[in-house]
C-alpha cells in the first residue's frame, strides 16, 4: 500500500494547536484588516452598470481607448485587458438619468468607428442599479441561509460543541476567502458567491468526516482524555483529508488553467477556499471543540446508536 503519510502511532496534532490556531488568528485579523482598508471590489452584478468585452483585430492600445472614450463623453470608463492584449474589457458605472440601456451598443459603435473597424462584440452586460442592489441582498441572504441551515443540520447531528466548532470553521473559511479577494482586488460577482457556498459545503464535508470519527472514537476508546481521542481521530482521517483535498485541487487547477477567463475568479475562490478549508477542518473545528470542554461523557450517556446499526447493511 502506498501512503502519502504513514505515521508510527498517533500524531500529537493537538500539541501543536497553539501554532496552527495562531496562524488562523493571524489570517482572520489580516482578512478583516484588508476588508476594512481595501474593501471588496464588487462586480457588476452588485454595483450595477455596464461591462463591455470587445475583441480587436490587433493588440489594443488601452490609452488610446481611454482617450477616445473620454472624448466621446465616457470619462469614467475603466478599460483593461481581459485574457489577451486583443481583448479589452470596459466597465462603466451606472449613470443617473441617462438612458443606460443603449450604452453598450454605443461603446461598440464608437470603438468600431474610431479605433478598429473590425472590433467584435464578445459580451455586453448591463445591470440596473436596483437589480444590483437586489442581487447583492440575495447573495448575502444565500450565504446566511446556507450557514443557518447547515448550523441546524450539524446541531441536530452532532454534539453542540462540535457544531459550534464546525460552523466557526466555516466562517473562518469564508472570511479568509473574502480577505484574499479584497487583498488582490479580484472582482467579486455572483459566481464567486456560488463558489463561496461551495467552499462552505466542501469544508463542512471535511469537518464532518473528522467529527464523525471523533464521535466514534469517544465511544470506542475507553481510555485516554479528549485530546488523545482527537489526536487519534485526526491521525486516522488525515490521509483521507489530504487525498480528497488533492483530488479536488487537481480538478480545480484544471478549471483554473483551462476554464477560461469567465470563471477564473470562481476557480480562485474554490482553490483558496479548499486549501483553507482543509486547514480549518483539521485544526479550527476540533481545537474549538476542545476549548469548549468536550469530553467523553458528552457522547456516552444518551445511548445513541449509530444510525442504521441495527439494520442489514444496504450494500
Amino acid at each position: 500500500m502506498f501512503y502519502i503519510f504513514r505515521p508510527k502511532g498517533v500524531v500529537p496534532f493537538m500539541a501543536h494547536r497553539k501554532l496552527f490556531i495562531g496562524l488562523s488568528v493571524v489570517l482572520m485579523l489580516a482578512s478583516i484588516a484588508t476588508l476594512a482598508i481595501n474593501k471588496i471590489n464588487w462586480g457588476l452584478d452588485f454595483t450595477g452598470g455596464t461591462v463591455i468585452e470587445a475583441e480587436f483585430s490587433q493588440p489594443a492600445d488601452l490609452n488610446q481607448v481611454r482617450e477616445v472614450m473620454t472624448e466621446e463623453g465616457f470619462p469614467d470608463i475603466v478599460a483593461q485587458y481581459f485574457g489577451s492584449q486583443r481583448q479589452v474589457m470596459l466597465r462603466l458605472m451606472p449613470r443617473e438619468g441617462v438612458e443606460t440601456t443603449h450604452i453598450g451598443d454605443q461603446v461598440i459603435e464608437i470603438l468600431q468607428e474610431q479605433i478598429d473597424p473590425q472590433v467584435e462584440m464578445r459580451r455586453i452586460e448591463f445591470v440596473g442599479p436596483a437589480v444590483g442592489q437586489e442581487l447583492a441582498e440575495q447573495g448575502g441572504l444565500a450565504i446566511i441561509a446556507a450557514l443557518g441551515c447547515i448550523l441546524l443540520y450539524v446541531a441536530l447531528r452532532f454534539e453542540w460543541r462540535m457544531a459550534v466548532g464546525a460552523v466557526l470553521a466555516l466562517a473562518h473559511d469564508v472570511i479568509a476567502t473574502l480577505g484574499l479577494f479584497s487583498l488582490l482586488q479580484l472582482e467579486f460577482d455572483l459566481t464567486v458567491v456560488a463558489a463561496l457556498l461551495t467552499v462552505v459545503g466542501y469544508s463542512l464535508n471535511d469537518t464532518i468526516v473528522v467529527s464523525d470519527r471523533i464521535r466514534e472514537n469517544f465511544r470506542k476508546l475507553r481510555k485516554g482524555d479528549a485530546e488523545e481521542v482527537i489526536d487519534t481521530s485526526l491521525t486516522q482521517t488525515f490521509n483521507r483529508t489530504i487525498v480528497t483535498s488533492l483530488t479536488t485541487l487537481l480538478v480545480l487547477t484544471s478549471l483554473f488553467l483551462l476554464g477560461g477567463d469567465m470563471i477564473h475568479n470562481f476557480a480562485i475562490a474554490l482553490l483558496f477556499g479548499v486549501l483553507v478549508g482543509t486547514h480549518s477542518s483539521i485544526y479550527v473545528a476540533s481545537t474549538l471543540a476542545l476549548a469548549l470542554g468536550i469530553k467523553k461523557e458528552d457522547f456516552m450517556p444518551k445511548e445513541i446508536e449509530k444510525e442504521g446499526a441495527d439494520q442489514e447493511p444496504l450494500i
Partner: protein
Amino acid sequence: MLNHYPWWKNLLVTLVVAIGFVYALPNLYGEDPAVQVSATRGAEVQASDLDTIRNVLDENSIEYRSVAFEDSLLLVRLRNESDQLPVRDLLAESLGNDYVVALNLAAATPGWLEALGAGPLKLGLDLRGGVHFLMEIDMDAAMEKTMEGMVQDFRSVLREEKIRYSGVRIQGDKVVIRFRNEEALKQAERFLTRTYRDYEIVESSVADTLRLDVSMTEEFLKQTRDYAVQQNITILRNRVNELGVAEPLVQRQGAERIVVQLPGVQDTARAKEILGATATLEFRQVDNNADPRDALQGRVPVGSQLARRADGSPVVLRNQVILTGDHIVGAQSGFDEYSRPQVNISLDAQGGTKMANFTRDAIGEPMATLFIEYKPTGEEDENGRAILERHEEVINVATIQARLGRSFRITGIDSPAEAQNLALLLRAGALIAPIQIVEERTVGPSLGQENIDKGFMAIVGGLIALLIFMPLYYRKFGLVANIALVANVGVIIGVMSMIPGATLTLPGMAGIVLTVGMAVDANVLIFERIREELNEGRSPQQAIHYGYSNALSTISDANITTLITAFILFAIGTGAIKGFAVTLMIGIATSMFTAIVGTRVVVNLVWGGKRIDKLSI
C-alpha cells in the same frame, strides 16, 4: 456470502448506467444548419407550404436534408452552413409577409434516439450566444394611470347622477371625494358602492370636512398588476415572433418582471427597439360609401384612408377617430348566450360618453378596431433618436347593434382563440404599464463557442488528472474508481439531457468539474476505510465489507450538506447560478450512485467470494 450482489442488483446498476449513456449519446451528433419558418399573427403554416419550399430550393439547386414539420415548426435542414443565409432570404422573399423565416441549428439526433425521447443538452445563452433581457414593468406608473382614470370616472358619474361634490383628487394610494353636505355624501356612498365592486369605499369625514376615501381592493390591485404583466408578455411575444428568432423565451419572473431570451441574436440595439415599441388602438367608422377595390387602385375618398386586415384584405376607414385605446379599462373574452365567442369591453366614463354620442346616430354601421404600433425603422434622426414607423392593422370589424355605453361587446368572432387574442390586443391598446430593461446580458457567438470549448477542456483535464492519480494511489481499486468516474460523467450528461428544464451553462460546466472531484471523495473514504480495516487485521473480504458499510454514514453526511448548499443556490440564485446548482445536485445524486453502488458491483465481481490474501489497494 460476503461481498456478493444478487444478479438483479448487478443488472439494475448496469441498466441505469447504460440508460444514462444512451441519453447522453445525442450530444455526440452535433447540429444541422437549418432555417425555420413560422407564421405571423393570425396565419398558420400549411402543409402545402412544404411543397412551395421544396420547389424554391430545387429551383435554386440548393441541397437540403429535409423539409418537414418538427414540433409545430416548419424546419428546413440544410447540408451546408453557407446555404443558411441565402436560403433564409430566398424563403422570406417567396413566402411573403405572413411568414417569419429565421436561422436555427437543429439537433441532428438520429431517429431511433429521438423515438426514445432523447435529445442533446440545452445550452444556456452564455454557451450559445444571444441576448438575455430582464424587463421590469413600471407598476407605479400603471397604478397612477389607473387612479387618474378613477378620478375622471368619479367626476363624470357623480355629475351624471346629479350628486354634488366639491372635489375629487388623488391622495397617496386613495382617491378622496369631498362633499358639501351629509346628504350628498350618503347618496354618493350608496351609489358608488352599488356601481363599483372593485373599490373599497370608506367614509373618513373629519370635523366639518365631509369626505369619502376610495381605494382599490387587494384583489383588484393584484388583478390589475397581473393584467399589466400578462398584457406585456403577450405584446412581447408577438414582437419577439416578428424578430424571427429560433426558440425565444418570454417568461414572467416574480411579481413584476419579464425575462426575454433571444438565442443567437447579436444586434441588440435593434432587438431592444423592437421590444420597446409602443402600441395604441383606435375605434374607427368604416366608410361604407367607398369601394375597397377602388381604394386599392388609389382612389380613396377624401376624409378616409385605406387600411388592411392581418390577412391583407383592404378596409376603408374614415379618418375621424371615434375613440382611442386609452379609454379602454378592460377587455375580456367570453361566450354569449348562444355560446359563441365574444369580447366584453369596458370603457372609462369619458370614453363611454364619447361612444354613446357616436353610436346614437350610427346603429347598423360597421365599426373597425385599428391596432397601431410604432416600430423603429433601424435608422436615427440627427438627434440620435430612432425614427419610428407607424404600422396599422385592422383587427376587427363589427356592426353596431345598439347605442353603446361604457360597456359593450363584440360578437361574431370566429373562434375562442381569436376572441382571446382580440381581448389581449384591446387591452394592449390601453397599454397601462410601461416597461423598462433593468438587466441585459449579451454574449457574442465567438465567446459562446469559446466558453463551450474551455468548459469542455476543463472537464476533460480534471478527469484525466484524476484517472491518472487514482490508480497510482489505490492501484486496482483506483481503476475501479476510474470506471465509476467515467460512468458518473456519462450519467450526469444523460440525466441533464433527459430533464426538460435543465440547461447547461458555463458555471454548470464548472459544477460538473467539481462533482467529478467530489465523486472520488466517496471512493477515497471507502478505500481509506478498507485500508484501516486491513491494518486492524481483518481479512480482505471482511475489510471490503466493513470498509463500505462504515464509510456509508460519513459519505451521506458529507453529501447531504453539499446538497443543502446546492438547494439554497437553486432557490436564491438566478440564471447561470441556477445552472451551477442544478448540475451540482444532479452530480451529487449520480456520484453517490456510481461511487458507492457502482464500484461495489465491480469490486464484488472482481474480488467477492474468492479466497484472497492481499488486496491491491
